């Protein structure tokens, strides 16, 4: 089976993804860096102005010359205002950079998840997907929020102090730079060790989310079967794993801070002793040593800040890695590179011809569901497919709706392979209504309009009326404008199926597939749907899969499936009159009616 390949993730996928997100903002990043540089200059000017005031302004004032003092006052005020305003602009600009990147990332994730095939969704689980789009994006947000400032701050301060040290005394400066060797070993070791834990924590969080959403979405059976205690015990195990991840991260951080501080302080002590010896030997001025020692101390100040940057970087990297892996997955049912348009429909015929050409299909390698299928559905034909559970009826429908591609062979719509149609063209051609009738947040009208975005209220109501859903909808508190989520649990399964039908009617496809779409309707509801279908399906190609043979009455042709093969094929009356499986089924069904 065309399993979604777990995309190839290159080693530095996280960095590549981040780069691609920030690429459009390259100019802004540079401007932000410049702003931060200026802002730091304005901040650092303070002490210099103090020194200037004491050394020059005081004597000048004594000489009754207020000029230098005025200059200091103006300079200080200017620096104060400048540093504040630059900070303001920087914060806004970096927020802009970060938020643009996040918007892009969220959109990419969402669009990508939507483009991936149904089989991917069946495997990946909704909880994990939600984790990728929420908590993983959140950790990237944290990096983008403060990361830039942290990283630039650290770099600037290290550069500035190193330069000062080298200027003061090349020997001490060189020694200080050498100390970066063991420090970088520590940083690297911290990154390596914490990356493992961050990855583990991100998976643990996803597991927590999976359990959480599963419980909340299935709250009725959870409560009815008293799963609360068992769930709590299971949740506690998952929660504990996440806790362990969090705790170990803090401990890794502790390890890094302790070891790097130790190195820093040891270097400091060594340089002091070495410097003292050189002072004793007269090679070094005492003042220079004193200044150098003070600067050295500041050289190592950003160790903690670097740590916190590394923290958010690692956390974001683990998330980026997982998101990159998701984005690298290719849909197993890809959009064609060069879509072929459908030929114009023959005048007066809204239907299209469907051909299954040597189609074989297996969900999992080795377990073939459809051995080999050759089948032609004539344009405008209503075909009922019957057979017991597992006969391959739904698989047939899914292949026709292109939820999956056949393992072998092709499915053609008016001679064009489905795989050569663009997504939009495909959905104008083929629409499937299933028995699961999920309603999205929004109004009833919104939910019907999914069939044809941009449909007017009249068109929506016409579709609802045609299917017999109009009455129950108008009886809702706000009619078509009733928010289904507020009463989501209160629109019954049968009513939801009606909404699903109205949606399909509105979509107005050439080929309509109904997969058990009336299972929850009561008999009058089903009859109403059938009456509507008789007119709506007229001329359209329709594939109706139903357990209730009443639906079959409107069919022109019946296919009986068994073990993935078509064992009977004919008009309903032919088959009923015969002695085959359908005749038996039909008899059993007639008996069940009374």
């Amino acid at each position, binding site marked *: 089976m065309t399993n979604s390949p777990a995309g190839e993730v290159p080693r530095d996928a996280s960095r590549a993804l981040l780069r691609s997100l920030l690429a459009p903002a390259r100019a802004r990043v540079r401007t932000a860096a410049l702003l931060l540089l200026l802002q730091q200059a304005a901040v650092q000017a303070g002490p210099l102005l103090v020194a200037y005031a004491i050394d020059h302004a005081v004597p000048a004032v004594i000489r009754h010359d207020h000029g230098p003092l005025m200059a200091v006052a103006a300079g200080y005020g200017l620096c*104060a205002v400048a540093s504040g305003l630059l900070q303001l602009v920087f914060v806004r600009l970096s927020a802009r950079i970060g938020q643009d990147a996040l918007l892009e990332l969220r959109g990419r994730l969402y669009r990508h998840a939507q483009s991936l095939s149904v089989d991917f969704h069946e495997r990946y689980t909704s909880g994990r997907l939600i984790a990728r789009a929420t908590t993983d994006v959140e950790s990237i947000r944290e990096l983008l929020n403060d990361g830039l400032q942290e990283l630039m701050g650290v770099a600037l301060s290290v550069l500035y102090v190193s330069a000062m040290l080298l200027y003061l005394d090349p020997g001490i400066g060189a020694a200080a730079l050498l100390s970066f060797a063991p420090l970088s070993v520590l940083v690297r070791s911290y990154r390596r060790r914490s990356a493992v834990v961050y990855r583990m924590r991100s998976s643990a969080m996803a597991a927590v989310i999976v359990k*959480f959403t*599963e*419980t909340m979405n299935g709250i009725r059976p959870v*409560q009815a079967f008293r799963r609360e205690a068992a769930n709590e015990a299971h949740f506690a195990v998952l929660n504990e794993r996440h806790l362990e991840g*969090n705790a170990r991260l803090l401990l890794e951080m502790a390890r890094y801070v302790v070891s790097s*501080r130790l190195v820093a302080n040891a270097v400091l002590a060594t340089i002091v002793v070495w410097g003292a010896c050189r002072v004793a030997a007269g090679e070094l001025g005492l003042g220079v040593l004193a200044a150098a020692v003070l600067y050295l101390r500041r050289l190592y100040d950003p160790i903690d800040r670097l740590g916190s940057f590394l923290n958010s970087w690692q956390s974001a990297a683990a998330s980026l890695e997982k998101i990159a892996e998701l984005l690298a997955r290719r849909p197993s049912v890809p959009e064609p590179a060069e879509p072929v348009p459908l030929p114009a429909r023959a005048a007066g015929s809204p239907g299209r011809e469907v051909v299954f050409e040597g189609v074989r299909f297996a969900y999992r390698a080795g377990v073939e569901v459809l051995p080999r299928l050759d089948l032609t559905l004539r344009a405008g034909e209503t075909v009922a497919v019957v057979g017991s559970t597992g006969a391959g009826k739904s698989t047939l429908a899914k292949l026709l709706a292109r939820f999956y591609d056949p393992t072998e062979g092709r499915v053609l719509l008016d001679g064009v392979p489905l795989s050569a149609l663009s997504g939009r063209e495909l959905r104008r051609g083929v629409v499937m209504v299933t028995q699961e009738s999920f309603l999205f947040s929004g109004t009833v009208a919104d939910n019907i309009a999914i069939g044809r975005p941009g449909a007017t209220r009249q068109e929506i109501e016409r579709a609802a009326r045609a299917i017999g859903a109009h009455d129950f909808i108008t009886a809702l508190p706000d009619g078509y404008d009733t928010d289904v989520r507020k*009463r989501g649990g209160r629109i019954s399964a049968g009513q939801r199926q009606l909404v699903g039908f109205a949606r399909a009617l509105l979509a107005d496809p050439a080929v309509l597939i109904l997969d058990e779409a009336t299972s929850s309707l009561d008999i009058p509801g089903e009859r109403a749907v059938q009456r509507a279908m008789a007119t709506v399906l007229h001329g359209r190609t329709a594939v109706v899969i139903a357990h209730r043979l009443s639906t079959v009455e409107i069919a022109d042709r019946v296919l009986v499936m068994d073990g993935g093969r078509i064992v009977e094929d004919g008009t309903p009356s032919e088959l009923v009159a015969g002695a085959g499986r359908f005749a038996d089924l039909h008899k059993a069904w007639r008996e069940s009616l009374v």
Partner: protein
Amino acid sequence: MTGTREATRPAEHRSAVRSLLRLWPYVRPVHRRLAAAALVTVAASCLSLVIPLALKWTVDGPIARREPSGVWLGGLMLLLVGSAEAGLFGLRRVLVARPLARVEADMRAALYAHLQRLPVSFHDRWPSGQLLSRGTTDLMLVRIFLAFPLTFLLVNGATIVVGFTILLMQEWRLGLVLLAPVVPLVALCWFFEERYARAARTAQDRIGDLTTVIEESVLGIRIVKGFGRHPALQRAFGTLAEGLRGIELHKAALLGALWALIMILPELAVGTALVLGTLQVADGQLSTGTLVAFLSTALALRWPVESIGFLLALTNETATAADRYFEVMDTAPPAAREPRIRRPRCAPCRGDGGLRLEGVEFRYPDAPPGTPPVLRGVDLHIRRGETMALVGTTGSGKTTLVSLIPRLHEATAGRITLDGTDVTAVPRSRLRQWVAVAFEEPTLFSASAGENVLMGADDAGEEDLDRALAVAQAGFVHDLPEGHRTQVGEQGLSLSGGQRQRLALARAVVGSPRFLVLDDPLSALDVHTEALVENALREVLADTTALVVAHRPSTVLLADRVALLSQGRITAVGTHYELLHGNREYASLMSGPKGTP
């Protein structure tokens, strides 16, 4: 298609401090550790101050006097103090590592446990995305807040107080100059805090809405696929994501402005102090040394003061997160057994077997006032061991009615008795032990097929499992890759609707419950399988009191009698044939009005 933020509107006039104080019960078990860590932080900060002194001593003393032995001593001292400093920094983190992670985990576990016990009507109203964002991003904020901002708010606050005391002691007039911006700063902080809090709340709610949209687009993927990528959904997502970006930018603008003010005002004061100080020095009123000391202290306070801006912002966001968390936690779970005001008029009902509903009314708690209740006076008696079918038009309230029996919803009036016991008089867990339910929409959990079935009973074994699978005609389970140990549910093998329905049915019958509630349990089965299930079910139903929601004659025939639900009442009870011939509504429900459009 925006989410329902109505349910999550922030309460006006909240106080950040009050919100944060509510975290105390969760912090309490670890408060000693936190306090110890704070002490260690203070000690480490003090040691950090000792290091410059040690440096000064070494430079001024042994080095200046060129005493080699003293130099070594100084070096050793530096190394010792440095090691102690490093150790304390590490100790602080080691102390809080597990406790803080524990606070987050405890709060999450409490939320999960609480949500599981909230009634179904609560879950109907709250999108699970909103609940999820409270259990994840909001709690992460709380942990981060406890780890850093809280400590630094205290430490930096203390530093500022001590710093200003020193400044005032050094030179009180200049000190007052520095204190001047405090009043406008506090006012401005308050001004921004209020706006920032509101923006933070909106942003966090937006994240919840976004989570909901993502969740729905994933859960409804087959519809999205079946109709092509839906532009309206993408637009909804786009609008929300862009809205979130807008709010985050607004937050950044507020934070930037606050930060700018916090930088500019104190710096201007320092500048003024510098000018005034310089004049005083020139006048000889002040020594240069004092001015230098004064200004270096003032400059040293720069970072603590500036940090207040983002620390306050983080504090605010945490307060908002706490609000959102407690909003859910404050929703009281229904009491285990409610003392009913209308006590049973018990004389006739004692020893009265079966399932009895008397004057049962139900109205959704959030139904707009004035709308009629869904159920208005349902009277129904199912004799012990009898099977009753419940029939009614789509949307007549059948599912609502059956959900009242295991108290997934609470009847708003009237009473329901099981073998004479009022359902509100027993704890829910016992009640749900008596009553087993198969839902219209069969939900399987991430567990093995066997476990999914066995969760219907407390002490069922392999034999019961086989029996239940046989009743539900779920023999396909044995053909799964690993038999009944095959993982199903979201994280396992995906089964067809009919297969899931049969497992859900097996789950309902596995424990041989006293009362069985089946909500349209055979809708997804083909005729052949349905007939087999019905035959097997008959044996189970023979000695079980059961209520079966039915849409079709075949299902109705499982029952001894049928009840018709119409306009919120039971309007007819009788056998299938009696009603078919005597009740027009029933007849049309079971066969459809022939010929009429």
